[in-house]
């Protein structure tokens, strides 16, 4: 592994510091969130730290190769990841258990998480192969890429993991929009979306997923069942008030009123303990990070790199927004982690791969 020292000079250190700050907030918050977990709080923390180092190692690995070289292998990464997704689906169906994790030597890994950066890489690559200068992409251009997107989405929905599928779809559309489509193509995608919603509702979505959406509209529909999660999350965040209950003093998560408080509902822990001021600071950290990502994309003149960085920024933005909306009861309960903050090794590594690609583009932006 070799990284040219001159390239390091071009790295966006502000972005790196911003990311490290988010990681630090995540770790500190996770200490509080995992204290009440019976299976041993340090067990989970240790796993997260291991995942962090693993992620940073992968990040450096990515930095040492030119992103264009990496993008060239995108199809192989895609096939490999897709294979894992199909594999867990089959193994899961046979075992009748969870169909999201792949367990290798006792380490559980969620291949659908890996699909997020892989999809960015693949889509950016495919779209730029098809992109003609000064011309938006037409329908014919995007049919194959669309198929590549939809296949893993349907498989992930089958797991069932609505959250990851939504993130994949939305970030793919962001990238399509970024590269630019003809008006007719937008219309086609719009119509496709409209028609697929009832089909999804009818055939693909599980009853509990439907209930989650219905209980968002009316949480009193089933306050002890599906509404419970949203109501308790709202109470947790709201009870934080202006200044919060103080670090380690959150009662809602400590007394197990919020399921999944250390993963998808991590913001309830933060909001309860740090209050309005702390939460606004956290939002600003995220926003400045995403803004910095967009800035990288903007300052990269090479179109492939620009698209890749835009894709990474969109994934972080989409996950952040939906996750917070869910915690404050403005979006239905779907399994989407909060990048940097939620517990979960796969998610952390996936995010760090994204950052790796971003920095890769960032340090090589003056090569042309």
């Amino acid at each position, binding site marked *: 592994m070799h990284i040219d020292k001159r390239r390091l000079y071009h790295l966006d250190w502000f972005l790196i510091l911003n990311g490290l700050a988010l990681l630090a907030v995540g770790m500190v918050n996770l200490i509080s969130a995992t204290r009440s977990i019976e299976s041993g709080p340090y067990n989970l923390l240790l796993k997260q730290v291991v995942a962090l180092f693993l992620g940073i190692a992968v990040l450096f690995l990515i930095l040492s190769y030119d992103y264009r070289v990496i993008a060239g292998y995108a199809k192989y990464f895609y096939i490999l990841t897709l294979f894992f997704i199909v594999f867990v689906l089959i193994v899961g169906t046979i075992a009748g258990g969870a169909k999201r994790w792949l367990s290798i030597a006792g380490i559980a890994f969620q291949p659908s998480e890996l699909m997020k950066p892989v999809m960015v890489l693949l889509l950016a690559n495919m779209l730029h192969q098809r992109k003609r200068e000064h011309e938006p992409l037409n329908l014919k251009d995007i049919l194959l890429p669309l198929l590549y997107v939809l296949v893993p989405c349907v498989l992930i929905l089958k797991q069932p993991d609505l959250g990851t599928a939504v993130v994949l779809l939305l970030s793919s559309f962001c990238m399509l929009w970024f590269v630019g489509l003809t008006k007719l193509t937008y219309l086609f995608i719009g119509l496709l979306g409209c028609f697929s919603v009832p089909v999804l509702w009818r055939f693909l979505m599980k009853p509990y997923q439907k209930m989650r959406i219905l209980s968002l509209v009316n949480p009193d529909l089933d306050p002890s069942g599906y509404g419970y999660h949203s109501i308790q999350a709202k109470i947790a965040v709201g009870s934080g008030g202006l200044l919060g209950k103080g670090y380690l003093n959150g*009662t809602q998560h400590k007394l*197990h009123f919020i399921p999944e408080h250390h993963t998808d509902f991590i913001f309830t822990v933060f909001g309860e303990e740090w209050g*309005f001021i702390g939460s606004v600071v956290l939002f600003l950290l995220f926003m400045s990070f995403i803004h910095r990502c967009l800035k990288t994309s903007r300052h990269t003149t090479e179109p492939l790199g620009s698209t890749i960085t835009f894709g990474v920024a969109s994934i972080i933005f989409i996950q952040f927004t939906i996750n917070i909306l869910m915690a404050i009861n403005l979006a239905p309960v779907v399994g989407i982690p909060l990048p940097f903050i939620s517990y979960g090794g796969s998610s952390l590594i996936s995010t760090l791969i994204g950052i790796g690609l971003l920095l890769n583009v960032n340090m090589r932006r003056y090569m042309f």
Partner: protein
Amino acid sequence: MQQQSDATVREKKYKWCERILVLTVIILVMRLFDLQILQGEEMRKLSEQNRVRIKKILAPRGTMFDRTGKVLADTRPSFNLYIVPEDIKDFNQTVDGLAQLLDLDREDLIERLKDARDLPPSFPVKVQSDMSMDQVAKVEANKFYLPGVVIQIEPKRNYAYGPMLSHALGYVSEISPEELKTPEYQRYSIGDAIGKFGLERMYEKYLRGVDGEKRVEVDASGKEVRTLDIKEPVSGHSLYLNIDLEVQETVDKALEGRQGGAVVSDPRTGAILALVSHPAFDPNQLTSGSREYWQKIAIDPSHPLQNRVTQGRFPPGSTFKPLVALAALEKGVINENTSFLCGGHFAFGSHVFKCWQKRGHGSVSLHRGIVQSCDVFFYNVGLKVGVDSIHTMAQTIGITKPTGIDLPGEKSGLVPSTEWKKRTTGEKWYEGETVSVAIGQGAVWLTPMGLMQLASFMGNEGVTFKPQIVNRIVSPRGKVVKVFEPVMAADAKLNKGHITLVKEGMKGVVNEPGGTAYSTAHVQNVSMSGKTGSAQSGTGGADHAWFIAFAPSDTPSVSMAILVEHGMHGASAAAPIAKTVAEVMFKDEKEIKSVREGSPPEKSTDTRLPGVPNRVAVQ
């Protein structure tokens, strides 16, 4: 040109991204402001409600002692079964499981939960009191399958002597939803035990302590995590009663197997020494909340829940005669020399009134009229004195209104008057009715409590005290909170000679051969005075047997009224009970060989009428 356009398009897209970012932050911060600042207090309250549960620690009820310090009612630990609705995971699993396990009525269980639906779901709802050890073991063993079911150890009322004191002490049981709505029970909550009857009800506010509180932190499954703070409960005040357990036991035993009531008091203070009503009920079973038992006694035709002493009104029969005699003497229509001829019957208008002695008493004086309870003598006296004077005397004695005993629901007696008849029926009074009233029949209805006061009035020569069961109230720390001093109820200015005449007559009833109770109530070691009564029950069936008495005859320290429903003759059914009471109460006194041989006491000799035997001072 086109190149530039591509770049401008991208620039525009970045601009849009920036706008979306700003918009997103604005939306999120606004929502956060709404939740954390505007609704913050509310949400904090909700999170506290989630986390903190207030558990009531029931205060033990005050103890009740008899006059010698024997414990009559105390508290013991018991196991009560509760359901916390919030912790129920599957309603049917918990409710059906519990109903099956303990063989409870499922509908009843649901009813109890429904009654509590207005309360916060974390509030435990009591579904069974005083579980057996067997039931406790069953629930504990199946606890895992019954989420929301809790057993709590709480103090339970315990009546050491069961039914023996049931009408005096009363019982406690769960407050009903109707009672909860009344202002009297404003500060109570569902599931609280309240005094429902007797002293328990009368002295509820003293007996009930102050419940404590334990604030605990619970997790989402309702499991206690830690105790935040505890406010210890304060026991209720104790009652020291005038009841003498030994006397109570004697009377209770004497009335065993019969219907009736008896009350024994100290006429010098109004202190109630014994109060028995039969049939009785088991207060322990009622306190345990046994619905079966409740239903059983509620439909029992002999009305075990009625306190016959204070709530049962009966015709007094001949026990009313001393009152009529005194009224006539005071009015001056008769004197000690008045006599009437009794031929066994008395014709008035077209009606013939009979004397209980078919062959007649011959010429009857006032003394013999009382001693032998001659009906014809009193028919004549009654007509002479008139119903209104009889009514006035009853008012003077204080038996036309409740005596004021410290028990709830006391009924007043009824002694008619011309005005009363006019008012209630609109008709005028007929002289023939006076004839019936003169022997305690007709429209005369009195409670045993009222007749006991009549006996006291005669014994005390015109003075009565308000009957009181409770002597004093003592706080758990031993401080005397309240002492019930004797309260004078009647203080009549009577002609000493007149009252003495009546008293001598009543003394003769028990102590003179030929007196109606001589053979059945004469006691060796005390001179007792009394009056028998056999009253037509008015409801068919055998006559009610009465006996009222006081002893010692001159300065009585005990007075009583005994009723045996359908006991036929006062002399044979009721008087022996008075005898046993007197024997128990005066067992330490010296035996009196002959009543007539004593030396006359100095004090009252001058007021004695000639020819009337002097009393013997026994104390």
